[in-house]
């Protein structure tokens, strides 16, 4: 799971330039039920990143 969290398919490294910020474009994989999505705050499992006390800024 931890590895999946870091890996994003389809991220085009060849177009990346210095001094620019990039956030990978989300690719659809799966979704929660509407009830669960409304409760958790996202429809997408890969975007569900709940707060876990640990190093600051890690989520």
């Amino acid at each position, binding site marked *: 799971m931890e590895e999946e969290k870091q890996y994003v398919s389809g991220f085009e490294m060849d177009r990346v330039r210095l001094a620019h910020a990039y956030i990978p474009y989300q690719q659809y994989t799966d979704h929660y039920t509407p009830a669960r999505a409304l*409760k958790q*705050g*996202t429809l997408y499992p890969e975007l569900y990143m709940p707060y876990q006390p640990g190093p600051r800024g890690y989520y």
Partner: protein
Amino acid sequence: MWEYKKILEYPANVRRQDPDYASLVVTQFGGPDGELAASLRYISQMYTMPIPEGKATLNNIGTEELAHFEIIGTLVYKLVEGIPADVLKNTRFAPHYAQHGRANYPADAFGNAWTASYIQSHEDPVASIQEDLAAEQKARATYEYLIDMSDDPAIIDTLSFLREREVVHFQRFGEVLDLLYDYMDDYEEWG
């Protein structure tokens, strides 16, 4: 124009009233990284955004942040509603009571009034979107500090939902940034 629905986007429950905590969580009502700042920032930036996806994202998220402003306002008020002045005077909420009674007021946890100086709006869309990415991170971090200081599971539940929305907003602004690079690459190529 806007349409208003008389329901909260997410429930705002408190197990037990707590004026001290009200005076802290109020920072997400009217503080530098709060929901009012987020909403007005995005809705102000929208007009000069050169791509429709950018305009739509700012409008959508700016609208949602206003719904979050309403959730936090509900939380703050529930934490102090009906508590007598002689109890409030011994809490962190006392200065707020002196100036506003129990009415909500957009201020930060120190009592500083909300100011548009918290936000920026640039014609340069890359500059604006990166301000927005930063805003989402700062809001996420603030929710984590606030969660750290609460032992009320109902409040933690609401703040966790709002925090997760900031994670999603960050992703959406990141996608707009990518589309802006595409737009600029095309502009370079075709003039």
